[in-house]
């Protein structure tokens, strides 16, 4: 380097003239008031210049998306960045199996560091649903929400405020939905919801048989069963904790496994000795036929029925019920003249009569046997009948409360209980079925107890006001997971109905397009929480914060604290705790009820609290069966209610029968609409998505492309070839997507994996393959639940 390098400038290629001319081009220093052209960088705190390369830190954590698996994720962190993910590597034993990440858990690095993540709070500028937003600061966003919320509450009252059901990254202990309802509760109350999109029908119907939904046993039971029937249950893809691990262990012990499902699911392929294809919405008919065989061939457990059941036959009926209403009389067709024989069922279910007869005999004679019900078939127009049908079969064959048996029904059980942050009470005290939120927007004031509204006071017979403010946090149920997207889109786009929609999301999902205020949410690696699984939950994992919040994202609790401050209830809302403090509080609370729940320090070090099944094996209703004297069922009659007086008193016998009956479903195989739309459509939980999360992950798209399954016969008659792009349509909507021609689905039925992001073109035709473009908003009669596997459609080449 010459001494003063400037003085050689003249000989250099860049001529002076050019410099002179150029230097005048940008005259005034371009420093704008609001724009910090400098100042984003500051002198380095602490003198050490070249940061020593910190050695790798490995933290155990887990995601808190609404996934049943809850796998252990180990984040390898190098100076503040997650560079690699691994999963559980401890010893893998029968009592304490490893919680290995499935295909979804493997793609989390692309989830956290995806460039398409929402980064800044945004305000809608175009029409609602148009998807035009501009960046605003957090203060602006919180001010706007506070101002609007107060205005709406004053104008319409607190009952117009609603926080939507969410199946996304909704957290658990300190979940977004609970926290906003806590905040609403402190500022006048809100319209709450009951049920869920996963299990509305089974949560409502099971108690009418057993008085509770806790009908599940620990999975080590399965190794003692002689036979397992997985009815519409596909744990391999839906990931109910480590169910597939235990079902495999059972299979190794020679247990016969039968899967009944319109699709030959991955569970049927890997675990089942036999797959029985059945037409959707007809499961109850097959159950009735099986009951017919069990009764007529005297295979039922007489003593069990006498001692523990009500409503089996005429002399086990509660009083005040006319003749011929018992299970036996219905099955033998004494009143309606139609005996529910396997031949009768064959025409409805398409299952050969001989198969029904054989299965019934096998199930009744091989004791104990486990009839495990999946949540798919209960998500139908008359899903309640399927649920109670399963419980009745388990009862009359005496498989309830015995090791190796299974009480069927909802099947909830959790060995590990965690305490969530309390929601506090809700002065408004009203809840609606979560599936009817669109009705609450358009005709809220007409919704009464018949619509499933709970908590109505004496003088109140309907909801006081339509829904006006919607908080859709960490969920895609605003449009993607809710039925009938086109109709929902219309309702949302009408700005006179909902006056405020706040969405907090990680990505730009179809629901986020309808936001007025769009808040960037952080991911599980940037916040604290504790994760558990769906039933049977055998473990809790500390969802540790591994990295700082990305961009300007915040966890829902963080921005709600700002909102609470703005609304003047910060102290009551936070009780002086931040997110981590609440987790520590929750752990202490859990330790009160479960002494060997680890302390926060142990939990942080260990990362996981897993209850070994050794000595903790639970069999549902074991006490009620062993010692019925002082262990009654929680039903009105204290017994298993095959005939439910409570249902009878609702006297809507056609839609809500007192005993489980097959009801020919609207848009079912016998609906006259089949002339126009001959094919039945069902959805299924796809292994590459957790509801709609991960739909934008390209690795998972390669592993599981979004294709519709169609039987080769149905495709041939419509001259469709494998891989063609087809249109699937009915009166509610139209979807264009590629088809996979396969015999792994029963003829007459097609299947679309649920959860793909709704991508309508300009005339509302979905181009991605969202099954909810075609599903109906007509709720099931008892639970008012979502009937998303009850659809009739037609398919044609595009």
């Amino acid at each position, binding site marked *: 380097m010459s001494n003063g390098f400037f003085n050689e400038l003249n000989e250099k290629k860049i001529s002076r003239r050019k410099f002179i001319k150029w230097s005048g081009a940008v005259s005034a220093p371009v420093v704008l008031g609001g724009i910090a052209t400098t100042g984003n960088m500051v002198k380095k705190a602490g003198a050490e210049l070249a940061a020593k390369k910190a050695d790798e830190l490995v933290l155990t954590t887990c995601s808190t998306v609404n996934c049943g698996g809850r796998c252990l994720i180990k984040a390898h962190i190098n100076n503040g960045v997650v560079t*690699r*993910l*691994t*999963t559980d*590597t401890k010893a*893998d034993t029968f009592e304490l199996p490893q919680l*290995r*990440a*499935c*295909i979804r*858990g*493997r*793609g989390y*690095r692309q989830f956290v560091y995806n460039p398409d993540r929402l980064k800044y709070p945004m305000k809608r500028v175009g029409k609602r649903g148009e998807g035009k937003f501009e960046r605003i600061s957090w203060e602006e966003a919180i001010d706007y929400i506070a101002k609007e919320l107060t205005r709406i509450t004053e104008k319409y009252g607190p009952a117009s405020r609603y926080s939507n059901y969410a199946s996304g990254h909704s957290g658990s202990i300190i979940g977004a939905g609970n926290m906003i309802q806590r905040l609403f509760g402190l500022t006048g109350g809100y319209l709450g919801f009951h049920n869920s999109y996963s299990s509305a029908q089974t949560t409502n119907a099971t108690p009418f048989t057993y008085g509770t939904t806790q009908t599940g046993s620990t999975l080590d039971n399965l190794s003692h069963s002689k036979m397992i029937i997985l009815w519409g249950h596909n744990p*391999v*893809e839906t990931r109910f904790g480590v169910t*597939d*691990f235990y079902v*495999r262990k059972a*299979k190794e012990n020679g247990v016969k496994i039968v899967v009944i499902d319109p699709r*030959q699911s*991955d*569970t049927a*392929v*890997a*675990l089942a*000795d036999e*797959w029985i*294809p059945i037409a959707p919405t007809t499961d109850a008919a097959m159950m009735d036929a099986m009951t017919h065989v069990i009764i007529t061939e005297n295979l039922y457990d007489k003593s069990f029925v006498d001692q523990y059941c009500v409503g089996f036959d005429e002399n086990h009926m509660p009083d005040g019920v006319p003749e011929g209403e018992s299970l036996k009389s219905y099955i033998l067709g004494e009143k309606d003249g139609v005996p529910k024989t396997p031949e009768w069922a*064959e*025409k409805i279910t*398409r*299952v*050969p*009569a001989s198969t029904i007869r054989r299965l019934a005999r096998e199930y009744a004679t091989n004791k104990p046997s486990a009839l495990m019900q999946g949540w798919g078939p209960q998500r139908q127009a008359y899903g309640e009948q399927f649920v109670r049908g399963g419980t009745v079969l388990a009862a009359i064959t005496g498989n309830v409360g015995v090791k190796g048996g299974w009480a069927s029904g909802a099947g909830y059980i959790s060995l590990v209980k965690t305490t969530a942050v309390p929601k506090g009470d809700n002065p408004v005290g009203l809840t609606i079925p979560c599936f009817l939120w669109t009705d609450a927007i358009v005709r809220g004031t007409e919704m009464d107890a018949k619509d499933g509204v709970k908590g109505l006071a004496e003088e109140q017979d309907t909801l006081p006001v339509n829904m006006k403010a919607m908080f859709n946090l960490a969920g895609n149920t605003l449009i993607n997971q809710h039925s009938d997207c086109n109709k929902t889109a219309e309702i949302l786009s009408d700005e006179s109905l909902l006056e405020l929609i706040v969405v907090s999301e990680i990505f730009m999902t179809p629901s986020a397009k309808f936001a007025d205020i769009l808040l960037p949410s952080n991911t599980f690696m940037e916040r604290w929480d504790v994760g558990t699984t769906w039933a049977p939950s055998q473990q809790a994992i500390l969802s540790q914060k591994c990295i700082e919040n990305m961009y300007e994202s915040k966890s829902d609790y963080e921005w709600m604290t700002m909102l609470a401050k703005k609304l003047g209830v910060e102290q009551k809302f936070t009780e002086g705790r931040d997110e981590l403090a609440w987790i520590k509080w929750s752990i202490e609370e859990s330790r009160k009820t479960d002494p060997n729940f680890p302390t926060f320090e142990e939990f942080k070090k260990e990362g996981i609290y897993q209850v070994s099944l050794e000595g903790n094996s639970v069999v549902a209703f074991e006490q009620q069966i062993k010692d019925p004297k002082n262990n009654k069922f929680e039903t009105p009659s204290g017994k298993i209610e095959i005939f439910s007086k409570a249902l009878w008193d609702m006297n809507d016998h056609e839609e809500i029968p007192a005993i489980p009956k097959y009801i020919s479903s609207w848009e079912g195989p016998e609906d006259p609409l089949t002339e126009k739309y001959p094919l039945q459509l069902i959805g299924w939980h796809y*292994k*590459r998505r957790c509801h709609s999360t991960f739909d934008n992950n*390209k*690795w*998972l*798209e*390669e*592993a*599981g492309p979004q294709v519709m399954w169609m*039987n080769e*016969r149905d495709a041939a008659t419509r001259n469709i070839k494998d891989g063609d792009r087809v249109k699937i349509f009915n009166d509610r909507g139209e979807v264009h997507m590629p088809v996979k021609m*396969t*015999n*792994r689905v*029963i*003829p007459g039925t097609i299947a679309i994996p649920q959860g793909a992001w709704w991508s309508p073109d300009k005339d509302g035709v979905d181009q991605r393959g969202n099954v909810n473009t075609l599903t109906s908003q007509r709720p099931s009669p008892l639970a008012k639940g979502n009937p998303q596997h009850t659809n009739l459609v037609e398919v044609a080449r595009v």
Partner: protein
Amino acid sequence: MAQLGFYINNDYCTGCKACVVACKDKNDNEVGVNFRRVYEHSEGDYVERDHAVIQNIQTFFTSISCNHCENPKCVEGCPTGAMYKREEDGVVLVDHDKCVGCKYCVWNCPYGAPQYNEVLGKMTKCDFCIDLISAGENPACVGSCPMRAIEYGPIEELRAKYGNVSDIKGLPNSSITKPNLVITAHRNAK
């Protein structure tokens, strides 16, 4: 160390592809480059007797990476000698200094193991996660299988433990390259 090999319990493979994505995550592979692949094999048909449906649909999944064969045709056919079989544990590797990206090994491998990487312009393949093994860990795919259906180890041990079936329906005949692979066949794959 003796010749390494894989064991797959075909009977329990659910086709969930956790192994495929775990391998991609570990090797940072692009879409389209899969060192481990899961193939679905489905046959059989329906008989409709008036309204009833009788089926004999037989489906199973097979997870295959590279079987580091005894006499690998990819090594035999490779013009540059880039594809070579390591002495110490018989793992077949690609030497990127020699590989010319002619893709001839793709046509020679019965199991689709060589995966061409457009960006690199060279062939890449399963290397048995020798770095993880030497660090005492399991290969990415073995540790990822929810059904515990993939194991690895010296091939003789695997054969002693699980027999020496390496031919099932849908898989090319093992006589071609003598794969170091032991399979417990799915009931539909025999």
